[in-house]
């Protein structure tokens, strides 16, 4: 196998890693205000992803950087074409990223409410917009012979792109709900189950529609690929399991559904990396956008050394914090001044907003 094909696969794995891991962060972020009815429940919801969201987000950074290093042409065309959409993604990432730290450290319901909205909107917007972007790669954008984008912002809003964005958003919401059910107890867990069931039904419909649309776009006939079939089955599994006590399996199913969706986009794309709707001769491919052989070889060595290490310590981190998260309400009522994480929390827990 040629090195640029290996790097295409590695980049796909980075994108899958990003969406499977940060996917439940997005879901939890977007749902935390609705699943959590009280301030304590909201804080519990946010804390379920507390130790990990930052590390999960690195998968996006690495996916982008790997595209830059291995396929500079792809990175250059894609990032400059998606310009205004990426500005929105960045704004959402910025607000969302600091909201975790800032929300609990300021004073007052307005401060917390504001950052909660930042977290909610940011978490929903990012998978939606990145989904649009990934859909656009496959359905095609106006790109000229020099591999420069020739359209404007509205050319990015392709029907298939939007459908892909909605699909990924719904899958992330489902993934977040199954994750919350896995990581919480009591009422909060019941809410999460209820959300997972409803979102699951929507996800089944959306996913089936998207699979059909994907078949139309790639023009590969009427037979769905295995990833598509398994993807749909996984969404159904997650929805059904959300009514039972099998939180772990429900979460695994929603994660698999996301992995299948992302994998499917790139499988359909290969060996192209960006389709030109102007002329298929202008398509960007793994061949015409890749770095030199030596650079790819060096990068492969680096990936072979560091990826197992990353998986090892991220896995350890998931293992360390595997227990369910509960609120500190009971402790707070006994001794408000010592056991709450901050002076604010004492009032929050006893008098929920």
């Amino acid at each position, binding site marked *: 196998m040629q090195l640029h094909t290996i790097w295409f696969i590695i980049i796909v794995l980075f994108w899958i890693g990003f969406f499977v891991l940060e996917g439940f962060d997005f879901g939890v972020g977007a749902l935390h205000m609705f699943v959590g009815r009280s301030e304590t429940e909201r*804080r*519990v919801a*946010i804390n379920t992803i507390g*130790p*990990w969201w*930052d*590390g999960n*987000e690195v998968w996006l*950074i*690495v996916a*982008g*950087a*790997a595209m*830059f290093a291995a*396929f*500079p*042409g792809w*990175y*250059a065309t*894609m*990032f*400059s074409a998606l*310009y*205004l959409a990426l500005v929105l993604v*960045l*704004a959402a990432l*910025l*607000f969302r*990223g*600091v909201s*975790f*730290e*800032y*929300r*609990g*450290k*300021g004073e007052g319901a307005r401060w917390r409410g504001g950052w909660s909205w930042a977290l909610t909107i940011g978490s929903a917007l990012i998978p939606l917009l990145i989904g649009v972007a990934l859909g656009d790669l496959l359905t095609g954008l106006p790109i000229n012979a*020099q591999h*420069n984008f*020739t359209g404007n912002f509205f050319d990015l809003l392709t029907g298939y792109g939007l459908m892909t964005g909605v699909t990924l958003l719904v899958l992330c919401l489902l993934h977040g709900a199954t994750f919350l059910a896995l990581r919480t*107890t009591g009422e909060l867990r019941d809410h999460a189950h209820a959300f997972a069931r409803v979102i699951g039904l929507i996800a089944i419909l959306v996913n089936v529609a998207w699979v059909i649309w994907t078949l139309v776009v790639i023009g590969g006939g009427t037979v769905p690929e295995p990833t598509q079939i398994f993807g749909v089955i996984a969404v159904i599994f997650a929805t059904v399991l959300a009514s039972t006590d099998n939180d772990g399996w429900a979460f695994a199913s929603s994660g698999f559904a996301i992995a299948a969706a992302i994998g499917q986009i790139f499988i359909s794309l290969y060996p192209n990396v960006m389709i030109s709707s102007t002329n298929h001769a202008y398509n960007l491919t793994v061949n015409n956008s890749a*770095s*030199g052989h*030596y*650079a790819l070889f060096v990068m492969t060595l*680096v990936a072979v050394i*560091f990826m197992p290490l*990353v998986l090892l310590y991220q896995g350890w*981190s998931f293992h*360390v914090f595997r*227990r369910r*998260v*509960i*609120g*500190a309400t009971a*402790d707070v009522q006994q001794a408000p001044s010592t*056991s709450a*994480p*901050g*002076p604010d929390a004492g009032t929050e827990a006893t008098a929920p907003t």
Partner: protein
Amino acid sequence: MTNDLARWQFATTSVYHFLFVPVTIGLAFLVAILQTAWYRTDNPDYKRMTRFFGTLLLINVAVGVVTGLVQEFEFGMNWSTYSRYVGGVFGAPLAMEGLAAFFLESTFLGLWLFGWNRLPKLVHLGTIWAVSIGTMLSALFILVANSWMQHPVGYKLNKAGQPVLSNVWALFVNPTFVWGYAHVILASLITGCLVMLAVSAWYLRKQQHVESFYRTAKVALIVLIPTIVIQLSVGNQLGVVETHYQPMKIAAAEAQWNSCKPCSFSLLQVGGGANDKTPSQILEIPHLLSVLATGTWNGPVTGLNQLQAQYQAKYGPGNYVPDVFIQYWSIRVMAYLATLVLLLALWGGWLLYRGKLRSARVFLWLSVWAVITPFLMNTAGWLLTESGRQPWIVQGLQKTVNANSPSVSATDIWISLIALVLVYIVLGAADAVLMLRYSRHGLAEADAEAAEPSAAPGAPAPALTY
């Protein structure tokens, strides 16, 4: 116009990003030191200080991480011609940064933050050291990339005239990188020390939590004194390296329009803007520029006019002189402020030695205000090195004016520039509010957090960190 806007955007976002990065690198190291002290002595003062400064660190990391994402996206968004041209070389260290540094830093930060009372003490101490190593590795890879723009090495030009990586090791032993990296790490430690010293001095002046903050003031000063001394000589050596590889940069920094031998160092001049080739010298020190730029008493420095003629002969017509005003003043802001910080550090060391630090009111007052200086120096340093490379984006290979994205219009960049500036103002304001609030009231919160009961094994986790 488009090109200028893209430059403004990159300058704004990188300067902003680098307000937070050195605090992160510096504080992560110092917090690791404090926690090590706690681990070794079991003194609860060190534990509460670890938690207190750890939270200041976290508030900063949040902004540093997300503004770093903007930088990574910006190469492709605004500088697609550049990215397409050099990605085969420049992209590699960026990808290595993600794989080797970002994962390490962010995963272990989560483990550290949520690992109190849950991980064994020694393992928990290991996590903060992993964070510190991660921050320093991240700076390493990004400076490898930046140094390649200052002094490209380890590549060959292919048939299309495009640089292709041919020797990755050369990127890591690039003299511009080696000295530049040392310079940035030391600058970050100085920044961290001055932040810690300022907060400690503020409490010492108010006579609150004196024993705890005396310890942190001591740690800050003990790290600061050798660091600033070494920094002065490393900065100087970096100047010598740059004189060799980027003579324009240093000649402009000294506003040296004509070649000289030996060369005097101008302490202060009036005028000297882009078109003013005859600034009035107010104060000059003979031989000092020769020593600084070449390391010898009578070393020659080639003037801007002579360099311009050389460059035109080599690269064709064009203006190869960077903005002399920015160069001249940014190097002086760094050098003069660094001297003041050195004096402050030595004074603090003397007070520490005499056991008078707790009550030295003037020193403590100055230490609080000295927190501004590292941010000015860090910004000046990047202006010096980046503006001094102009008109090149990659020295000798590609000009900045040819590097931006052809598909991105001025309107696009206006929108993103305004959007990012607004977002940055909101984030900066929130960060400042939190830093100040936490610096003043945070100790009670840190104490409360430290008092959390540790969870029984197997029981659900009660801690709500966020």
